[in-house]
C-alpha cells in the first residue's frame, strides 16, 4: 500500500486570498494548517493564465506550446498524455470531481466528449477517460450537460435560476451587473449552501472515497469551480463579510490619474482594454469597460470572492476530516493550488487576459506530504510551476517520471531547489480572436519577471515588461525601457528564448470561444 494523493484545485484564486500567504479577509484554516505541516511555495506560476491551457499543463506535465492547447477553445486531444493514466497504470484508483475543462464548454454540435460523458453516468464506458476511471463534472453555475447541472435540475430545479447567467443573449461573457453596486458578474443567489457546487464537489469526492477499499491507492483531483466569476455564492453566507467594510485591494490605485499613469507604462493593450477600446480575448466580459469600475463595486466583488474562498476551505476541511475518519490520514499527500489568478482590482482591472503579472501568475501552492513520509515543513522561494505537479504525483506514487513530462518533482525546500536547479519558470500567452492577436512569452527568475511580446495586432514585437518583484511587488513600474536595467533585460530575454519548449506542429485548431 502506497501514498494516496488528494489533489485540490480551485479556479482563478489569488495568492493573497489565503491566510498562510498573508491574506486577512478570508479565513482559510484548512489550507493554512496544510501549509504549516507541509511545504508552501512563494513563487508558483502557471504556464498559462487561462483555464484550458493551464489545466492541460497540469494533466500532461507539458507547456502549452507542447501540449498544443494554446488558448481557451482549443480542445486537448484525446490521445494527449495524462498523469492520471500513468498513475492508473501503476495501480492507482483515479477520479476527477468538479471542473475539468480540457475541452470547450460551448458545444452546440455535441462534438466534445467531456460534455457528453455525464449522460452516461460517472464511469466511462471505455474504462477511463484521460486516465480517470471515475468522473463527475461541474462548472460555474448550473447550465449545460455536466453532472452537477443534471443533479441540480433533477433534485432542486427551483434553484437553477438563482445563478448568474454567465453568457448574455449574444453568447458573450455577460457584463450585466448585480448585487448592491451593479458590479459585473455579481448576482444574489438564494441557493442553499448544501446545493451549491462547492459543497457538491466535496460531497461527491467523499462519496467516491467511500466507495474505495481500505487498501486501495488512489489519486483524486478535487477541482472546485470557485472563486472564478461569476460571484454568486449562496446569499445566506454573505453575512460573513460586509462588503462595506472591505478595504480596497493594495494593488488598486485609487486615483484615476495614477491608474492611467501605471497602465501607460505598460504595452498598449493594457490601456486599450482599460478604456474599452480593445477586446483581445474571450475571458472577460467584452461589453464591460474596466475604467467604469467603482471602488464600491470592487469592494463587493472582493467580499463575494472572499466568501467563496472560505466556503472552499471549509469544503476541503470536511473532506480532510472524512479522510481521517477513513483511517487514511497518515498516508495521504495533499496538494492545493489553482489554475491561474484573478486581476482582482490590480491596476483598476478585473478578470483575466494577456497580463503577466502577479495577480494572474503568483499562485497559491501548498504540498502537505503524507505524514507517514516524515515531511519537514518548509517555505520554498525558488520559482516552480504547475508543470511540476504531474512529475510530483509520479514521485509520490513511486513511479518513474515519463520522458514526455517537462517539469520536475517539486522541491521540498530551497536547498533542494538549489541543488536541482529550480531557477526559472516560463509562462506563455497566445490569443487570436476575430482579427485581434496577442502573443507573450514570460520568464520569472532571479526576483524578476520579464515578458517579451511577439508581433500582433497592437504590438510590433519590440515591446516588453520587466519588473523587480522585490522592489516593485505590485508591478507598477515597467523597467523594460529603463537603460539602467538594459543588461538584466537582455540576459532575461536571451534566457527566455534559450529555454522555450518544443512546439506542437501542426498547431491545434481553435474550435469554440471557451
Amino acid at each position, binding site marked *: 500500500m502506497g501514498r494516496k494523493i488528494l489533489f485540490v484545485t480551485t479556479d482563478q484564486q489569488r495568492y493573497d486570498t489565503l491566510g498562510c500567504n498573508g491574506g486577512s479577509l478570508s479565513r482559510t484554516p484548512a489550507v493554512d494548517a496544510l501549509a504549516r505541516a507541509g511545504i508552501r511555495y512563494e513563487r508558483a506560476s502557471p504556464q498559462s493564465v487561462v483555464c484550458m491551457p493551464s489545466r492541460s499543463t497540469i494533466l500532461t506535465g507539458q507547456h502549452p506550446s507542447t501540449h498544443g492547447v494554446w488558448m481557451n477553445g482549443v480542445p486537448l486531444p484525446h490521445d494527449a498524455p495524462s498523469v492520471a493514466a500513468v498513475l492508473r497504470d501503476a495501480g492507482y484508483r483515479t477520479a476527477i470531481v468538479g471542473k475539468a475543462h480540457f475541452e470547450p464548454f460551448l458545444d452546440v454540435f455535441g462534438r466534445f466528449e467531456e460534455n457528453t460523458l455525464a449522460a452516461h453516468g460517472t464511469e466511462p464506458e471505455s474504462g477511463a477517460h484521460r486516465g480517470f476511471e471515475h468522473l463527475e463534472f461541474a462548472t460555474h453555475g448550473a447550465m449545460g450537460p455536466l453532472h452537477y447541472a443534471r443533479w441540480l435540475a433533477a433534485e432542486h430545479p427551483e434553484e437553477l435560476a438563482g445563478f448568474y447567467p454567465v453568457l448574455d443573449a*449574444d*453568447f458573450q461573457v455577460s457584463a450585466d451587473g448585480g448585487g448592491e453596486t451593479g458590479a459585473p458578474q455579481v448576482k444574489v443567489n438564494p441557493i442553499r449552501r448544501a446545493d451549491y457546487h462547492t459543497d457538491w464537489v466535496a460531497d461527491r469526492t467523499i462519496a467516491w472515497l467511500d466507495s474505495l477499499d481500505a487498501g486501495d491507492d488512489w489519486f483524486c483531483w478535487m477541482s472546485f469551480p470557485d472563486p472564478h466569476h461569476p460571484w454568486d455564492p449562496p446569499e445566506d453566507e454573505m453575512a460573513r463579510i460586509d462588503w462595506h467594510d472591505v478595504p480596497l485591494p493594495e494593488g488598486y490605485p485609487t486615483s484615476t490619474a495614477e491608474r492611467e499613469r501605471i497602465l501607460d507604462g505598460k504595452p498598449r493593450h493594457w490601456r486599450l482594454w482599460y478604456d474599452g477600446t480593445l477586446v483581445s480575448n*474571450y475571458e472577460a466580459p467584452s461589453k464591460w469597460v474596466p475604467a467604469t469600475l467603482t471602488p464600491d463595486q470592487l469592494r463587493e466583488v472582493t467580499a463575494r470572492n472572499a466568501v467563496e474562498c472560505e466556503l472552499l476551505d471549509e469544503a476541503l476541511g470536511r473532506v480532510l476530516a472524512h479522510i481521517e475518519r477513513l483511517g487514511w490520514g497518515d498516508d495521504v499527500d495533499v496538494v492545493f493550488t489553482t489554475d491561474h489568478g484573478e486581476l482582482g482590482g490590480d491596476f483598476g482591472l478585473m478578470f483575466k487576459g494577456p497580463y503577466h503579472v502577479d495577480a494572474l501568475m503568483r499562485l497559491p501552492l501548498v504540498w502537505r506530504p503524507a505524514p507517514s513520509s516524515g515531511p519537514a515543513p518548509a517555505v520554498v522561494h525558488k520559482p516552480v510551476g504547475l508543470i511540476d505537479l504531474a512529475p510530483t504525483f509520479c514521485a509520490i506514487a513511486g513511479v518513474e517520471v515519463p520522458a514526455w513530462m517537462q517539469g520536475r518533482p517539486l522541491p521540498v525546500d530551497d536547498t533542494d531547489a538549489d541543488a536541482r536547479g529550480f531557477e526559472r519558470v516560463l509562462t506563455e500567452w497566445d490569443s487570436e480572436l*476575430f*482579427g485581434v492577436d496577442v502573443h507573450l512569452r514570460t520568464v520569472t527568475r532571479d526576483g524578476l519577471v520579464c515578458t517579451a511580446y511577439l508581433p500582433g495586432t497592437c504590438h510590433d514585437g519590440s515591446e516588453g515588461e520587466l519588473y523587480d518583484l522585490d522592489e516593485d511587488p505590485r508591478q507598477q513600474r515597467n523597467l523594460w525601457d529603463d537603460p539602467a536595467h538594459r543588461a538584466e533585460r537582455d540576459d532575461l530575454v536571451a534566457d527566455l528564448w534559450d529555454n522555450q519548449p518544443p512546439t506542437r506542429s501542426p498547431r491545434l485548431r*481553435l*474550435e*469554440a470561444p471557451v
Partner: protein
Amino acid sequence: MNGRRGSVRYEKRIDAPADDVWELVGDPARLCEWFPGIVSSAVDGDERVVTTATGLPIPERLLTVDPLLRRFQYRIDAPMFHEHLGTIDVFDLGDGTSLVAYSTDADPATLALLIGGGTAGALDELRTIMESRN
C-alpha cells in the same frame, strides 16, 4: 470582429475532383453525412432544418445552390442570430484535386466561432469521405 459581427473561414484541400466533392456538398439533404454533430437535415423547398447531436433543431434558409460556381450559401434563421451567412465554395485546382472553403459570418460574433468550429470538423470529415473513395 467588426462591431458585433464575426467572420470565420476554414479551407481544406481534398484529393478528389471538384465535381465529385460538389455532388455531396451541393446536396442540402446530405449535410448530415459529412458534418459531425448534425444528425439529420430535412429539406423542404428552400428551407432546411438540421438537428444537432445535442438535440437542437436549427432552421435554415437555402440562399444559393449554384452548380456552375460550385457555391452553396445558407442562412440560419434561429432567433439567437441577428444575422448569419454560411458559404461553401468548391474550387477546382486543375490537377484532379479541389479546395473547399467554408466560411461563417454571424452577428453576434461569438456564434460565428461556435458554428465555425463545427465547420472545421466538417471539412475534415468531408476530406476523409472523399479521399476514401480513391
